[in-house]
């Protein structure tokens, strides 16, 4: 992975007007207008403003986004984040305090079906032992791990997603 040079930062006073595409993480502290297409993560920091059609793998919004966001993995609006537009992503996380206006499309939602077991936590350091122990909110997930051979893994309740979400928020306040 090109993590060493895979970091593009758009500084606070910078305005980019046009099409932007790439295969690395992009951090926006300034303004970007037009279209953004990345095969990796877009991070809009609190000072950042993105007024664009966005197609990325992951999107973390702590600033302002106006436009539609399509992510192949996840979209997260943090508590400082503001967004107007439609989101299409298999995972959408909107935390308390975030502001959002638009539609959300997480793809096929089959209410009756069990949730796919292979839905690992987001690609972030998942091990946060202190918090995990303080907040044992994911018993279902643990059962699953203990019995992976079960033909029909018990559908993790929605609490799973919420648990991950809460943990993230707490960590950010640290």
């Amino acid at each position, binding site marked *: 992975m*090109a993590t060493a*040079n*895979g*970091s*593009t*930062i*758009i*500084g*606070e*006073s*910078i*305005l*980019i*007007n*046009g*099409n*932007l*595409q*790439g*295969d*690395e993480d*992009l951090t926006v*502290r*300034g303004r970007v207008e*037009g279209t953004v297409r990345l095969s990796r993560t877009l991070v809009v*920091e*609190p*000072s950042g403003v993105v007024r664009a059609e966005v197609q990325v793998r992951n999107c973390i919004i702590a600033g302002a986004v106006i436009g539609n966001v399509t992510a192949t993995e996840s979209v997260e609006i943090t508590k400082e984040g503001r967004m107007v537009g439609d989101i299409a992503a298999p995972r959408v996380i909107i935390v308390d305090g975030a502001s959002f206006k638009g539609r959300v499309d997480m793809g096929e939602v089959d209410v009756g079906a069990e949730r796919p077991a292979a839905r690992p936590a987001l690609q972030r350091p998942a091990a946060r032992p202190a918090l995990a122990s303080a907040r044992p909110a994911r018993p279902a997930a643990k059962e699953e791990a203990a019995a992976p051979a079960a033909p029909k893994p018990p559908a993790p309740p929605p609490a799973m997603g919420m648990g991950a979400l809460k943990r993230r928020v707490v960590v*950010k*306040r*640290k």
Partner: protein
Amino acid sequence: MAAMDKPALPKGGGQTVIGSTIVIDGEISGDEDLVIQGTVKGKVALKESLFVESSGVIEADIETANVEVSGHVTGNIAATEKVELKADCKVVGDIRAPRILIADGAVFKGNVDMDVGERAPKGK
């Protein structure tokens, strides 16, 4: 709390980096230094310095204070202070700046005009 303060980098003097896989087709403007490792087409207008690193490719007109080119630039460069063409750069286009440095090994094709700004510009 520390996490919240993270974006508070040197303000104004903050640095923007366009990474090597990034392609921008459009206009970039701003008041801070810009480092380009990727590709930019269109126009670049800055009030500070532009660094085109060796992997950087610019097909654009450039207006800045300083420009330092180690990569490829196709387009006209207008700087209010200085343009520096490093040893392995390739530049095609006209350069207009009071100070222009071309290092040994640089490849350059175009006009040079150092007669700008400070003195009344004579029609060359």
